[in-house]
């Protein structure tokens, strides 16, 4: 934010504003580098290494690079499998889901004009949970090959149906009331959550699997998942970015947005649809990964300001970086056992969020 750069204010507003433009470019550049760096780092972390426990053998740095970039060289064939079938899809999935959640969170915070909104606010997570639990309980999920398609597909479907129900509840005679939408989201989520608990209660052998899913994990990463998310995320983030001016206007209230030539009804609907599609696609493959969509937009707003033309890309990139690193941590803290990544994001995100909350209460900027 401009006001947070005292060293630039000597030259008056002109210097300040130029400084802002340069600073925005710098931040985007750094985030891109950070993304590449964290992808590489996350690829190198894991059992067998090069960074990690490496029992009983350790992959050397050179061999790892060779495998990642498919260079000719003298190394065991399964190194290529480790990287190309396991780690690369997993790291890419982490990046894509992180980007999806952060971008969707940014859009939802603007639509609800509330920095506490997150991508799950309209019921995506509870809807997807229900689908996943049904798939698990009906036994479809454990059927070889098709199970790994049906379960996410069902979760995606129930998530979208839920969002549609919540959306219809918030829509009164063609006008979308965000406060009604918010309350409908809460009520529907509570209702579906009760059904999920009920189902799990009677089939306790599924308990572990479901809890793992509800906490979020990237262990089911596959190239299919990467492909689906790549499509959803690239369309979703581009749409959100193209509407960044409208999101700016929306933050000043719907009437002001209308007066500035934007069309708040269309913008709200588009944002809800694309955020829901991105989030549902992510949740379907990885379960519910909390806090990314809440914290990252919030944090980036402190760093770059509220202008969505910079906020949307920088939050999207930061979400990717954050989830890639969080997943690398989840894989390695108590290796070879793996933690659900949702635990890591909540452990990092919760205290950070409280810190932000305190800061904004004690006169800091949010």
């Amino acid at each position, binding site marked *: 934010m*401009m*006001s947070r750069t005292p060293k630039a204010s000597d030259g008056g507003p002109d210097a300040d504003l130029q400084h802002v433009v340069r600073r925005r470019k710098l931040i985007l550049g750094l985030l891109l580098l950070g993304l590449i760096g964290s992808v590489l780092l996350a690829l190198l972390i894991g059992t067998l290494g090069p960074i990690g426990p490496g029992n009983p053998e350790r992959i050397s740095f050179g061999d790892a690079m060779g495998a990642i970039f498919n260079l000719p060289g003298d190394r065991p064939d399964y190194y290529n499998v480790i990287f190309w079938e396991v780690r690369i899809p997993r790291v890419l999935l982490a990046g894509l889901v992180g980007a999806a959640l952060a971008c969707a969170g940014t859009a939802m915070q603007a639509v609800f004009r509330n920095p506490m909104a997150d991508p799950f606010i309209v019921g995506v997570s509870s809807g997807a949970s229900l689908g996943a639990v049904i798939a698990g309980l009906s036994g479809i999920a454990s059927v070889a090959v098709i199970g790994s398609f049906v379960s996410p597909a069902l979760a995606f479907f129930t998530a979208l149906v839920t969002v549609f129900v919540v959306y219809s509840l918030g829509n009164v005679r063609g006008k979308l009331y965000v406060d009604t939408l918010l309350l409908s989201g809460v009520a529907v989520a509570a209702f579906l959550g009760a059904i999920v608990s009920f189902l799990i209660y009677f089939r306790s052998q599924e308990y572990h699997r479901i809890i793992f899913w509800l906490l979020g994990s990237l262990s089911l990463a596959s190239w299919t998942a990467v492909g689906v998310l790549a499509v959803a995320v690239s369309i979703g983030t581009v749409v959100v970015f193209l509407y960044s001016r409208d999101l700016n206007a929306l933050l000043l*209230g719907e009437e002001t947005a*209308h*007066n500035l*030539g*934007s069309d708040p009804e269309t913008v709200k609907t588009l944002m809800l649809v694309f955020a829901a599609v991105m989030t549902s696609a992510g949740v379907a493959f990885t379960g519910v990964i909390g806090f990314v969509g809440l914290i990252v937009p919030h944090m980036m*707003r402190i760093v770059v300001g509220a*202008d969505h033309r910079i906020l949307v890309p920088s939050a999207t990139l930061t979400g990717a970086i954050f989830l890639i690193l969080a997943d690398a941590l989840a894989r390695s803290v108590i290796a070879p056992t793996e933690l659900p990544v949702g635990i890591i994001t909540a452990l990092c995100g919760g205290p950070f969020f409280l810190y932000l909350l305190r800061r904004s209460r004690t006169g800091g900027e*949010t």
Partner: protein
Amino acid sequence: MELDLRGLSFSFGEKQVLRDVSFKVHPGEFLGLMGPNGSGKTTLLRCLMNFLPAGSESISVDGRPLDAFSPAELARTFAVVPQSSATDFSFTAYDIVMMGRIPHVSSRIAGTTKEDASAVRSAMERTDTWKFASRPFYGLSGGERQKVIVARALAQQSKALLLDEPTVYLDINGQFEVMDLIKRLNREEGTTVIAVLHDVNLAARYCSRIALLSHGMLEAIGPPKEVLTPEIIQSVYGVDVVVRRDPFTEAVYVVPHTISSLGHAHGTHAHLLCGGGTGGPIMKALVERGFSVSAGVLNVLDSDYENVQDLHLAVVAEAPFAPISEGAYAENMRFIEDSKVVIVSPFPVGPGNIRNLEAARAALRAGKLVMIVSPAPGKTIDFVGGKADAAVKDLISSGAIPVKDVHELVSKLPMEGTG
């Protein structure tokens, strides 16, 4: 920009807020929109912006029905300055003004163009807000924020400005600054202005015409001179006013008369010895309760003299800054003889007006009822070295009734023929 309203009506459900409003706004006009709270002014502006759907036939802009305008086109036609703007999000003042360029964006992919940047800059310089361009909007004062919003409206480069009480948060200086700026735009660039204004005098000073709404109906429309008459204001606002003409600007201005409806006029004569503005509340209270009030002796520039003028009361006047003369004293005594009750306000006593206390003493001797208003009985604002205090103590011991304030005064006053 020519605006034509033909039979504009609007209801919120059952509640009809605008009833059959018809008028035209001509290009380059400065139209003031006035009316009591809840009379439908904001609703009318919202209908103009098509934020509230009023039906396509009733509003047309440059001959085209409002519904034919796209949102962006409408925002290039009208720029709105709302009553207040706030956001919790950390936009800078510059970001806020830049949003005025949204209706001019050629495509969603396009970045900020040179025209955008220069429109924003010139709008901010003209409103004197460029100096805090990089400060966060929510950290600005209410007045600074309002100027930033005016800057945003300028950056919008629309054909007309719609202002909804644009000066509510501004101090007197800020009010005139903003209104002068808008007037300049109106005059130099032919921007049509439609402004909701509550301040009658601000409206009279800036508007070329005033439209007066009452209960959603157009009560009157025309130049300030014709609309701001005591009769029309009485019928719309229910207050009595005096309309005067500013000797310098020739603009009309309006001062409130008195609230005449409180008491039954019984005409009991009360004479008030006052000065320095201390008599104002007493006069008002007496007039409201139906007394026939006179006052004296007052110097012509004394603020109580102005109070007397505003209320159209009888007064014994003395030349500015002159001590009370024999003639004035005698005339004052004639008023006292004629009155039922003599009231002494807690006026500051100096050598020039101490004779007003003498007059009170004379009134007591003549058997008049004398009441002394004073927060601390027996104490005065004494510029005559204790003589005034002594005189007031003497009055009280000779039978004058001390009262603490206006409230106690009216509760103890005798009223004839009231009921």
